[in-house]
């Protein structure tokens, strides 16, 4: 009998409470969404498993000893992994559409308006200034940037804000079209844009170099993200280090995604996650994302007032940095109005500019708040 009691004591059942069961249900829901619905499975599945692991009684997130704590500490807390992801994104990104039509850089910046709207909204709702900045950056719909900023300003918000950012990335095709249709007329959606000019290899090589110089001088705190992003892009466009470029895009990206996903999931134990603030984060995050969409479209309208060559205002919505989902959505909404309107590549301009825009917005928060 005593033996049996000892065995029972060594097991972990006593340490469970209702919150753990809720988190198991959330983890399983994410597993379901990832496998059955295909919602960002590359990230959602590791995140879901991280949530499950951290909500089992163990020392897995115990500082200085738990396995996932080490992943988290050296990967995210040290802010190593998000810049490595940016390296991969840079190696995947074709800046051709931006170089061919540099006005789209403005749209990528304009769509960050939602970030600031939400920042002040979150402040008004009683979040701390650091937390408000991280919640605002969700509006850029950029997972790695959100994690990067959270690690520097509000680590306690990292898990939930990352999940919110990735959720809105997955929900781009649901959230954006109604806003886009509300803010444009049928005739505006039918605007066809002139073919993009051909961009030379030399331009593509110089773009990341000039971009990193300018942005780092203006916003030094964006250097980690933008430095890696531009470096990755130079690997791609140089044409002489295809092996490095492919490794950054594929193997390295996949490796860090595994560490990132599972340890971000592990930042969500029941005690932290099950608080009323979490609902606030999700609501504010969606406000941020919707406002960013609206700001991008608004800026496109404004630009049309001052320029002879009209742009289709829909492409402003692609200024959020969910690449290439937002560009696809623009293309789809545009082709619903006119099936022979091909906006996809035109929307890629603001879309990749949006990645830069969100990283810069994060850098600006850092320089003011840290």
């Amino acid at each position, binding site marked *: 009998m005593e033996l049996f009691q000892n065995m029972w004591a060594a097991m972990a059942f006593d340490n469970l409470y209702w919150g753990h069961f809720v988190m198991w249900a959330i983890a399983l829901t994410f597993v379901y969404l990832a496998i059955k619905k295909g919602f960002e499975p590359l990230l959602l599945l590791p995140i879901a498993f991280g949530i499950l692991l951290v909500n089992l009684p163990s020392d897995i997130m115990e500082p200085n000893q738990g396995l996932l704590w080490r992943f988290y500490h050296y990967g995210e807390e040290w802010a190593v992994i998000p810049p490595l992801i940016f390296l991969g994104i840079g190696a995947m990104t074709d800046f051709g559409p931006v170089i061919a039509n540099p006005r789209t850089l403005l749209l990528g910046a304009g769509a960050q308006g939602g970030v600031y709207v939400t920042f002040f909204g979150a402040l008004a709702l009683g979040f701390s200034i650091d937390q408000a900045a991280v919640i605002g950056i969700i509006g850029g719909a950029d997972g790695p940037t959100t994690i990067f900023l959270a690690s520097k300003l509000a680590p306690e918000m990292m898990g939930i804000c990352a999940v919110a950012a990735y959720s809105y990335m997955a929900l781009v095709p649901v959230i954006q079209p109604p806003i886009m249709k509300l803010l444009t007329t049928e005739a505006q959606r039918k605007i066809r844009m002139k073919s*993009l000019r*051909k961009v030379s290899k030399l331009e593509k090589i110089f773009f990341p170099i000039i971009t990193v110089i300018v942005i780092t001088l203006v916003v030094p705190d964006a250097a980690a993200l933008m430095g890696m992003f531009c470096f990755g892009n130079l690997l791609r466009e140089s044409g002489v280090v295809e092996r490095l470029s492919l490794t950054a895009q594929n193997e390295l990206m996949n490796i860090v995604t595994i560490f990132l996903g599972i340890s971000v999931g592990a930042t969500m134990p029941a005690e932290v996650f099950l608080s009323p603030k979490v609902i606030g984060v999700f609501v504010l995050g969606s406000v941020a994302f919707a406002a960013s969409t609206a700001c991008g479209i608004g800026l496109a309208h404004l630009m049309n007032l001052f320029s002879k060559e009209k742009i289709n205002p829909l492409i402003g919505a692609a200024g959020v940095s969910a690449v290439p989902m937002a560009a696809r959505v623009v293309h789809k909404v545009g082709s619903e109005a006119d*099936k022979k309107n091909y906006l996809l*590549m035109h929307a890629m301009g603001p879309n990749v500019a949006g990645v830069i825009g969100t990283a810069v917005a994060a850098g600006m928060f850092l320089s003011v708040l840290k």
Partner: protein
Amino acid sequence: MATIESPMAGKVFQILVKVGDAIAEDDEVIILEALKMENPIFAPEDGIVKEIVVKEGQQVADGDVLIVLE
């Protein structure tokens, strides 16, 4: 003689017509894949397919001629 040009950069995913086919305006002639999206390319006017310039799987740039009509 009219041509059908690619409206954007992408990869020819599927060619839906043959040389000699009579096609009408707005018929789908080619499916172009770009950014994992399959985009139908439509005939700009009525005509007969004289020559198909591209092959399935081929990368094309914005403005490249895909099909020649007569």
